[in-house]
């Protein structure tokens, strides 16, 4: 960086603050490991009578110590550019990005609502308590919040879901991120939104993070195709561009340790032709050089 010597005083102060923050961040990570050791030795001396100490120890480990260590290590090792995977708030690799969309926010919201999807509440203390109580009591909670996943360094803009069998533990859900201006998918495809859709099959304990989370179904392609099919049924003007082998097909795990496998295809859902009340959609020919008529499916494959 050539301009570091001529940095204005304000910028210099900010970078000192950032260095201090990093120092405290890492120091807190090490201290929390020490605290875990202290608590473990303390609980050894307490015997069986104080089992609650073990619960305290687990909570500390799963929700404070491990996340902080993951944050420090993933910041060092995991790339922060687009690799087709979202990241959890601890920095671990999360659900795969398996959908892209073109269209305005209003068109996306309208299409999903028409396809029977329900927008998820934001994560707040109240909504978190409600999802816990409704899961335990097996009560339906149609707008249950979804956990934050990060892409482009930010939490999803919004998420939609469909509950299955009135049970908040099982649900279809899909998170959406608006792409930065001028950003293109690898391969030079310009899209307005990318999305990650997975099916929550149960609530359980993750052996990776030791936290209680939703477990996702291994076959993320089924969920992806379900989302595409539901939107196509509800919005006949939808045009699909299917990017075959956008990613190599792979078999991996998400940040909670759940298996995922995918064929690597990426459907781009084009909603620009969808008309909204008082605003007609853009006709097929006007949508730049985009191939295909409304309602059609265009497959894009590689050279070989």
């Amino acid at each position, binding site marked *: 960086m050539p301009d570091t010597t001529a940095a204005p005083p304000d910028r210099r102060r900010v970078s000192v*603050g950032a260095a*201090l*923050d990093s120092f*405290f*961040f890492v*120091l*807190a990570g090490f*201290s*929390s490991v*020490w*605290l875990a050791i*202290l*608590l473990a030795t*303390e609980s050894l*001396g307490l015997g069986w009578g104080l089992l609650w100490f073990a619960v305290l120890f687990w909570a500390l480990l799963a929700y*404070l110590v491990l996340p*902080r260590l993951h*944050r420090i290590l993933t910041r060092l090792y995991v790339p922060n550019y687009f690799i087709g995977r979202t990241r959890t708030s601890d920095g671990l690799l999360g659900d795969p990005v398996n959908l892209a969309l073109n269209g305005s926010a209003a068109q996306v919201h309208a299409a999903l609502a028409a396809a029977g999807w329900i927008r998820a509440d934001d994560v707040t*203390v109240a909504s978190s308590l409600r999802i816990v109580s409704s899961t335990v009591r097996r009560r339906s909670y149609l707008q249950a919040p979804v956990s934050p996943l990060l892409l482009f360094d930010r939490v999803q803009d919004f998420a939609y879901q469909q509950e299955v069998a009135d049970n908040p533990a099982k649900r279809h859900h899909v998170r959406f991120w608006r792409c930065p201006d001028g950003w293109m998918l690898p391969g030079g495809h310009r899209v307005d939104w990318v999305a990650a859709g997975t099916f929550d099959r149960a609530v359980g304990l993750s052996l990776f993070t030791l936290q209680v989370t939703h477990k996702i179904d291994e076959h993320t392609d089924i969920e992806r195709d379900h989302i595409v099919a539901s939107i196509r049924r509800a919005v006949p003007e939808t045009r699909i561009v299917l990017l075959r082998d956008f990613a190599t097909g792979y078999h991996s795990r998400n940040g909670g340790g759940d298996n995922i496998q995918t064929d690597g295809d990426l459907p781009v859902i084009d909603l620009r032709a969808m008309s909204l009340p008082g605003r007609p959609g853009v006709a097929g020919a006007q949508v730049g050089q985009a191939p295909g008529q409304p309602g059609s499916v265009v497959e894009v494959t590689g050279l070989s």
Partner: protein
Amino acid sequence: MTGARSVEADVARPRRPASVVGGSLLMVARALSGGFVIGAVLTRWDEFVGTIEINGARLDPVDPQAAAAILGWLLGGYGFILVLYLGLATLVFTGRNWARVVAMAFASASILISFADYSLNGAQITLRTSLVSVTLDILILLALSSTNARHYARAVRAARKDRAAR
């Protein structure tokens, strides 16, 4: 969130994350635990006056009034620090970045001193000794150094500058 008004309110006052709320509550708990120590000393005043030593000799039999005065000053000073610490907790809660940094520095110093004592002198850190205060310090440091807390403090500062500029 609909309408321009609520969006504007969002810009002016960023949402306080759980880490800031938890961190300031832990700071209050830390001050209260100090308050309990003062309370414990006050209830057994004579016993504690007897422990005051100067140059290795107990002061109590020689000059009981001086011993009581020293203990009083020590407690008063500690109480004053606790009150300042409560004020710091309030400032952290309202999103002052310097207060957050000072609170983290206090917690770090306390943790590092305890750790040096533990690793070099083999001090026992158990529930009977300092485990509670060390735990509180580490949790305060964890909460206030989190990305959410940092972003919140920065956003509050930016919002304040923005308001001042208007």
